[in-house]
């Protein structure tokens, strides 16, 4: 089902890099893509008041959430490990800093990011000097904002997972001739796998659900920075309640399913232990 849905989205935008990746990974799906069953499904969904703009917003949301999740998992794994192991005096301030997006209003974060990324800001100056232009109101800018905004949702579960392992398995690995780096990859990471899955799901869901930061940094440009949450906002502004309903209901169902899946997963793990 996941495959079918992604193909529907990719049919919207032919020059999509993700679609190319998808086709390379699943060559058999390329022919299947055009199957009548899918076309019928797409027609059915179109009848449900999903305008091309809405499709674009959905696609962009998924892209943003996927990229944010990937980047965050790679960046936060060492960070979470450090936080769970270190005795350094920097632990508390770094911990607070990482948690900050959880309590700050998105507008505060968005505002500072606009300032930093803007033409006069330090990051803006840097990106302009590198010839990349200004990042605010671009997809890349939006991605950076999402990464910062979802940071605690990736770090926290990972850190808890590493904490839960305790020092014993790492000591065991050391007595079995594993260097610290070796032990991290062969023992700590596999044991933290449930935490990584939780972190990925929460980050993805949280990115899909963000609104304030997106609005401030992205500016709600169709096809570039307009995601589902801001699309709903646009529909409501324009009194298009029918379209807003479809997207809002979709978000509701999506979020519920994600949280339900997490709860079921956690229950199963507890049973194993």
């Amino acid at each position, binding site marked *: 089902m996941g495959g079918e849905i992604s193909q529907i989205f990719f049919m919207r935008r032919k020059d999509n890099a993700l679609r190319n990746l998808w086709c390379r990974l699943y060559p058999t799906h390329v022919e299947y893509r055009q199957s009548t069953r899918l076309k019928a499904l797409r027609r059915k969904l179109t009848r449900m008041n999903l305008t091309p703009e809405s499709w674009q917003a959905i696609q962009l949301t998924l892209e943003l959430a996927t990229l944010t999740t990937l980047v965050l998992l790679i960046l936060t794994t060492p960070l979470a490990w450090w936080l769970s192991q270190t005795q350094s005096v920097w632990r508390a301030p770094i911990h607070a800093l990482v948690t900050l997006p959880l309590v700050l209003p998105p507008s505060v974060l968005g505002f500072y990011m606009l300032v930093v990324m803007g033409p006069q800001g330090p990051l803006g100056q840097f990106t302009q000097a590198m010839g990349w232009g200004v990042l605010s109101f671009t997809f890349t800018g939006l991605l950076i904002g999402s990464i910062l905004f979802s940071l605690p949702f990736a770090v926290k579960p990972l850190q808890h997972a590493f904490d839960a392992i305790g020092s014993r*398995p790492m*000591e065991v690995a050391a*007595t079995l001739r*594993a260097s610290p780096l070796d032990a991290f990859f062969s023992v700590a990471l596999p*044991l933290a796998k449930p935490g990584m899955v939780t972190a990925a799901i929460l980050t993805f869901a949280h990115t899909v659900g963000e609104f304030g930061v997106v609005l401030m940094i992205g500016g709600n440009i169709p096809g570039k920075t307009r995601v589902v949450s801001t699309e709903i906002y646009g529909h409501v502004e324009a009194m298009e309640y029918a379209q807003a309903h479809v997207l809002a209901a979709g978000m509701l169902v999506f979020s519920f399913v994600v949280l339900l899946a997490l709860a079921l997963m956690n229950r199963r793990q507890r049973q194993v232990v």
Partner: protein
Amino acid sequence: MIHLQISIVRSAFELNVELQLPGQGITAIFGPSGSGKTSLLRAVAGLESNPLGRIQIGANIWQDTQQGICLPTWQRALGYVFQESSLLPHLSVAENLNFGLKRALKISNISQTEANKALEASIELLGIGSLLKRMPDELSGGERQRVAIARAIAMQPQLLLMDEPLASLDAARRQEIFPWLARLRDELKMPMLYVTHSAEEVTRLADHLVVLDRGQVKAQGPVNQVLTQVVNPVVVGEDAGALIAGHIGAVDALWHLSRVDFEGGSVWMRDAGLTVGKAVRIRILARDVSLATSEPQNTSIQNQLRASIQSITPDPHPSQVMVVLKCGAEEVLARVTKRAVNELALEVGMPVWAQVKSVALVA
């Protein structure tokens, strides 16, 4: 030869130990909880920082602060068996066994075939061949400890460290593992440091004994010597006694008895089904030994040993004394009343007959 110099200072605890230990057999580190046994073992492994210490195993120096040497744990050729299950939970038994072996191969110059042989030998030695495909959470506590021990010895470490490997097991599981540990001691050349607070484990397994108390070495030496020591006794009260190594000299099938011969005499005990020639350890408790100045006649006690009195020491209770007897090369303890000593006019150097009421087979 193993040389350990360890000093750990913490707020409420200080461990200061300097030891020369034999390069083979089981050295038991014995003491009450909080005496520093586990800290000592962890320092040897490099899991606990030991800033001023020196650790030398045979020709290998693991730590020497003066020379600025301190190998991290993973570069020390040791095997470590933790108190509770320490199998890596995400790996099967076979993968657990291979985890250390694979890495030990890379570091040392053992060949692959040699390593496979060591692995097979350790699987056979601990009897875990049927468990290889299982995950750790599908094993009983005893099985897990056997796998942990096999995993440690498969790497052919220069030193095997065991931290109360039986403490987390119930009595039945403990009995199940004892024979395997005794087999390790008898069949492997590698020296072992065995931390325990159980007198039973010391008497059954140890060759050499180090007694720790509040971070200091209270006594150390060959196990029988340390156990029969009456000044600062290690085992006090009803359990005080001698530990004697011998072998089965004869079996009396009619009366279900077997004779244990040792340097200095022999004693009869219940036949435990052991064959003649089998090496055994027996324990004779001080309360089970009485003394006579002439050869006892018409007594139900079957075991009489010729001995001479080596020392007479007051016991904690004012009515009792502890008499150390020299019986050939071995020492036997007897707890008798002061009045008896007075009436029989017992003195150091006097020849006596020790009557042994009961002999326990420990291993």
